[in-house]
């Protein structure tokens, strides 16, 4: 019989999917604002702008609500896990075989970058919004930062989706973030240093 171990708590999964929901809503409405072909097709720019702005506010609010309303202590533990890199992580990043914990070093980097991008998206987005209303908030580079973030976030997203949905060796991880559990043998192979409770 296949044995399963728990990889992600309910709070972790809720946070992940809240983030995904917000990201895709913002990506969709943002692309309509950004790509001329879509902008012409959809029109209604003022409405799309409002949708984009309030989706951004809703995204951050939802993340905050899930984090505060869920297992806060568990999330802090997860944050510590993501923060710390050991020698095996360094070896893994250099392309060598090295046993990994519940998160491999790539996932830790992805988490740190994604968290930073979230802050930068929020700040640059607010500056764009405020700058339209008050010149003191206007910087020549805000739009560049916001667009550049989208490009960088898309690169991360494509890699993330490839590993989570397509790549045969790793796509079992999708079960972890949906159902919460993964096969024990898979966990041992990919996350040998992780000792599930």
């Amino acid at each position, binding site marked *: 019989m296949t044995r399963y171990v728990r990889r992600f708590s309910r709070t972790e999964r809720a946070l992940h999917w809240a983030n995904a929901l917000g990201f895709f809503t913002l990506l969709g409405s943002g692309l309509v*604002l*950004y*790509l*001329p*072909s879509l*902008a*012409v097709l959809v*029109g*209604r*720019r*003022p*409405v799309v702008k409002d949708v984009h702005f309030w989706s951004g506010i809703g995204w951050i609010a939802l993340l905050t609500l899930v984090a505060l309303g869920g297992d806060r202590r568990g999330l802090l*533990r997860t944050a*510590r*896990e*993501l*923060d*710390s*890199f*050991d*020698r*095996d*992580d360094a070896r893994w990043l250099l392309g060598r075989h*090295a*046993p990994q*914990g519940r998160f491999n070093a790539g996932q*830790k*980097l992805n*988490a*740190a*970058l994604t*968290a*930073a*991008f979230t*802050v*930068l998206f929020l*700040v*640059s987005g607010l*500056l*764009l919004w405020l*700058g*339209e*209303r*008050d*010149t*003191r908030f*206007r*910087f*020549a*580079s*805000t*739009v*560049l*930062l916001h667009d*550049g*973030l989208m490009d960088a976030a898309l690169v991360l997203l494509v890699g993330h989706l490839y590993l989570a949905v397509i790549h045969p060796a790793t796509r079992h991880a999708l079960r972890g973030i949906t159902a919460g559990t993964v096969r024990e043998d898979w966990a041992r192979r990919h996350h040998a*240093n*992780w*000792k599930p409770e």
Partner: protein
Amino acid sequence: MSGSTEARPVIGGGAKIGRGVFLATTLGGLSSLWWGASVWSRISRAISPVESLVPLLPSGGWRIYTVSGSLPGFDPSTWRLELAGAVEQPAALDYRQLLALPKATQVSTFHCVTGWTVRNVAWGGVRIRDVLAQVRPHANVRALRFVSAEHPYDDYLTLEQASLPDVLLAYELDGRPLSRAHGAPLRLVIPDMYGYKNVKWLTRIELVPQERLGYWEQLGYDQDAWVGRSNGYRS
């Protein structure tokens, strides 16, 4: 440090690198608010020969900003450019009459007040004086009001600003008739001022005694939108 592979891993026991990556990325990103535009302008200048062969940015770096529900359409058989205001006799040009006026071309840079720039834009169109020659203005005329088919967008230029040598009423962009997204069939081009002064979908030019506030200026943007020295920017 519990680095060896044999040791039982301790959660959070390794080097605190994640927060470093987070902080460095966040601070790097925030600092780009000060250096981003100048670095990007150097990069985009460097890649502009490549960019003309392989478009790296969607639609050559243009974004299409509109203020209403949909983009105005263009029907060559019904479109008119009205010339009105303080004139002896209002006049109107249809599309064919417009194209029959002396054609002017120029290559100029387009700056948006939100920070993006498109270099080497090839415009074709007519000079304002050739259009204004169709009417006899009253002596008190000091400014022009440019009215867009996109209601309620309009903006003003003083006669002095409108007579800068590279101010154009453009009906061609990069050798092709102006597309709907770029303001078909006619838009104002004043390269020394930010894009919001470059009114798209022109249908009417009014000759008026003085400038008033245009659409974005009523929302707080500067009346004179000089690139690099207005709207909080200093070059």
